[in-house]
């Protein structure tokens, strides 16, 4: 790890628990880089996470950190941010945590456009419990609870976030780490709900069962499947078949929840005088 990032991590808690070849370590590092390059007050920064592989990241980060309940990170984070809007609040969550058990909190936090920076580690599987299918396991793929291939459909996370009211939505991957850092930095700048889907990979519980080769092969898959949104604009639909977009997918700032609440408090104070 870059020595200039050491102060952002709890080095004494390493090595982390993630499997060899897991993409989560790279994504966690990109969050550190984005924070380092965003000139945030580190003492005024809180990292909230849910439950699952992704959510263990909070324990390795040197801030006030809140490792919550499965699916509930956004509900806890809403309390932290609304209670003290001065705090920079990050939410680290996974595909199952954010869109299955926590799906309700996900759409409502986005609807409020509350100023949270959400990094959703998407490894397409429930890794920690041993490889059950999630709402992001592609149709047809194998998981321990879809032993004949997944017959369910997936969420389109950016579309879900945009439809729910998120004001900044982006996607990066564990391969496109520089882009991911830039997206997280843009999310930090955005005064509202920022959702960054970070495509990760789970060789142990997903890749192995779906014969996706080595972790390097999976990383290469991320590289070849991703198309930058600026490039995609020039491509035909045929060329985009089977690909996913990366980069800033949506950015439309509008009224933010905690600011509106503070305005309400001011209004009532003035009426009182």
């Amino acid at each position, binding site marked *: 790890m870059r020595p200039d990032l050491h102060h952002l991590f709890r080095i004494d808690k390493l090595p982390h628990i993630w499997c060899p070849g897991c993409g989560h370590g790279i994504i966690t590092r990109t969050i550190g880089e984005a924070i380092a390059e965003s000139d945030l007050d580190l003492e005024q920064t809180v990292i909230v996470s849910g439950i699952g592989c992704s959510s263990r990241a909070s*324990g390795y980060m040197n801030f006030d950190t*809140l490792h919550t309940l499965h699916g509930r990170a956004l509900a806890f984070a*809403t*309390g932290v941010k609304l209670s003290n809007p001065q705090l920079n609040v990050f939410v680290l969550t996974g595909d199952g945590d954010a869109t299955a058990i926590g799906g309700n909190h996900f*759409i409502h936090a986005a609807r409020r456009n509350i100023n949270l920076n959400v990094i959703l580690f998407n490894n397409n599987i429930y890794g920690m419990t041993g490889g059950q299918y999630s709402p992001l396991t592609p149709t047809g793929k194998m998981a321990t609870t879809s032993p004949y291939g997944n017959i369910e459909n997936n969420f389109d996370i950016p579309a879900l976030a945009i439809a729910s009211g998120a004001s900044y939505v982006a996607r990066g991957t564990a391969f496109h780490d520089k882009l991911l850092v830039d997206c997280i930095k843009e999310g930090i700048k955005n005064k509202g709900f920022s959702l960054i889907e970070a495509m990760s990979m789970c060789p142990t519980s997903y890749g192995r069962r779906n014969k996706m080769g080595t972790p390097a092969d999976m990383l290469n898959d991320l590289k070849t499947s991703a198309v930058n949104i600026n490039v995609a604009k020039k491509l035909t639909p045929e060329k985009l078949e089977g690909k996913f977009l990366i980069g800033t997918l949506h950015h439309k700032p509008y009224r933010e929840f905690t600011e509106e609440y503070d305005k309400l408090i001011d209004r009532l104070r003035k009426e009182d005088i």
Partner: protein
Amino acid sequence: MTMRKASLIQGNRACTEGALAAGVRFYAGYPITPSTEIAEIMSEELPKLGGKFVQMEDEIAGMACILGAALTGKKVLTASSGPGISLKQEAIGYAAMAEIPCVIVNVQRLGPSTGGPTSSAQGDIMQARWGTHGDHPIIALCPSSVYECFTLTVTAVNFAEKFRTPVYVLLDEIVGHMRENVELPTYEEIKIIDRKKPTCAPKEYKPYKIDESMIPAMADFGTGYKWHVTGLFHDETGFPTGKTDVIDSQLNRLMTKFSKYEDEILLWEENQLEDAEILLVAYGSTARSALDAIETLRNEGIKVGLFRPITIWPFPEKVLRGKLEKLKHIIVPEMNYGQLMLEVERVCKDKVSVSGLFKVNGLPITPDEIIAKVREVL
């Protein structure tokens, strides 16, 4: 604060005013009958005080949200009923495990399931004690009057802050919705307790290290202490551990952390207990019926008394055991199928026989029904 004069106040309002007087400045919850007035009044009053109210997307989120706010240093409260309290259990367990101060007001309605939203019941007594998985201690206070809705909510907030624990205020629908003429205490008359904060440098801070108080100091998020909060078993640094000896000592400490404060936590009321031969153990609105029954029976020369646990959990068992000498029988009237009677039996049955008077149809237990039960056991 100016002197308040007597006025006709609803139990749910008194509870809310107690919370605000105790310093609660953050509320998150979800609308549910018969607790909704608490959320409505909070939404009106909190922003005027610079506090925050948010109506969350569900009951679970309401509970989780107040815990997040508590970690930034706020005094927090949520209110709900039956189905909502069931949904909150996981996060209540989290609050017990991570030792986050919070108050949960449960305006009890008829259950199970959707049950009777506007009907009164006392069916959540055991849920308050054992509702979440695993072992942890809990404090539950049970008001009988509108005045106590105010004072016991103040006490609940104080206990939550002092002992870093979730605290229940268990109203029943009757107490929550009735209006009584009361003169609430002035702010000057109220004792306020704030949580203990660390005085050491951030580098030395161990969030679950205790002193003789048994209660660790709690740093607000955003003050440089950079600590880790988790629902996993953790050591005194707050980080997860799988060491069985550490788990053992941490859970032992959790289970006993307010044992030495029993004198402060255990609250109860006695009525004509000195010479009583028949004892009524009643709480909440049912205790009011018991008082009327006692008056009638005493006029006939029947020696009946009341023991009213105000602190339901921990149950004031030593206190009650000290009252058994002259008793011939104990009756526990309650709007459930004998939840607190189980506890009274556990504590008393080797010395005095115990029977219950149960009514679970949404209606209160009347004084006449208690009188009839007393005559039955005479």
